[in-house]
């Protein structure tokens, strides 16, 4: 078959049809995957909350407060067991990471001490900065049970109380920055 000639009308019609079909296809795939994507994200969030404030029996992802801080939003989820408040899971962030943004979930008990911390997402170097993840290193364990009012959230190099990850001072600093921000947010809603 001979190639179609490039006239104004034929070019216009071709591009119109191509983009129209593409848009239709994308629209239907989007509609199909919308629900699974939402569920996958929710599941991930719930798992992180489960780690940092264990033992709740409500749906913390429905009891959410939103705060604007340093140009982005921070989410606070309240975890309850029956009537008793077990603690607050704070979804916090930092842009100081070695490869950009790091998102953490920090659990505070009602007195303001850290219960536990989980990493939600990050792009740090595998084998170096990713030791901040639980299970890949002991770094996150030192925060458990500490009250940020008495425990200085800065690495020892900056005269704080935190043992940095070897060869990943930047990641460790960013981690502290995110936890500090979480504590500030927690203080604000109390």
């Amino acid at each position, binding site marked *: *078959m001979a190639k*179609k000639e490039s006239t104004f009308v034929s*070019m216009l019609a*071709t591009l119109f049809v191509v983009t129209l079909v593409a848009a239709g296809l994308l629209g239907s*795939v989007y509609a199909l995957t919308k629900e*699974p*994507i939402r569920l996958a994200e929710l599941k991930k969030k719930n798992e992180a909350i489960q780690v940092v404030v264990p033992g709740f029996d409500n749906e913390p992802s429905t009891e959410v407060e939103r705060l604007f801080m340093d140009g982005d939003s921070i989410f606070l989820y309240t975890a309850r067991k029956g009537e008793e408040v077990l603690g607050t899971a704070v979804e916090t962030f930092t842009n100081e990471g070695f490869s950009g943004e790091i998102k953490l979930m920090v659990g505070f008990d009602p007195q303001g001490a850290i219960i536990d911390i989980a990493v939600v997402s990050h792009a740090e170097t595998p084998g170096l900065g990713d030791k901040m993840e639980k299970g890949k290193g002991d770094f996150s364990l030192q925060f458990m049970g500490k009250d940020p009012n008495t425990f200085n959230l800065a690495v020892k190099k900056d005269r704080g109380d935190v043992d940095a990850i070897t060869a990943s001072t930047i990641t460790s600093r960013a981690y502290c920055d995110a936890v500090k921000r979480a504590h500030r947010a927690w203080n604000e809603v109390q």
Partner: protein
Amino acid sequence: MNQWKNFTKGFIRENAVFALFLGLCPTLGVTTSAINGLAMGLATTFVLVMSNLVVSLIKSLIPDKVRIPSFIVIIATFVTVVELVMKGYVPALFDALGLFIPLIVVNCLVLGRAEAFASKNSIWSSLVDGMGMGLGFTMALTVLGAVRELLGSGAFFGLKLISGDALLLFILPPGAFIALGYLIVLANMIKEKTA
């Protein structure tokens, strides 16, 4: 055209990474582990096969002057499909590959095959070409990922072989260049022997 030759050319002789040096950005970026390389390769293969198929199907309907924008729209559509499906059904993998999935759009391998092969050949040949080139790309990424993972974190497909740290350099960007360099030497040696 000999379809078997058409299929196998993508593995060594015209391998996208080792011989044509196309698509090096994802090659160097995601291959910190074998499984990442494999997943990235398969995602690219899907896009490559689908875009080759569609481009070959409609090649006589597309006026020459607007062929590149048309191809790009087709490729971008399939990439977005892959992205949405991955996000919904394998979120862990999507997190690992992250930014590199949308970047398949600008992988010159995909547009290169659409422009140089699919727009000039039959549907069947284009399909085989997309498959061969895609799987060749997948092989290259998986091998590079496996080598870097083995040297860098002492593991093979996530299975820890030694405890503690290995040669961290190979996980970091310079290690990608060094490992790729030696693999190209190896591929060239194989090519010379079979030629």
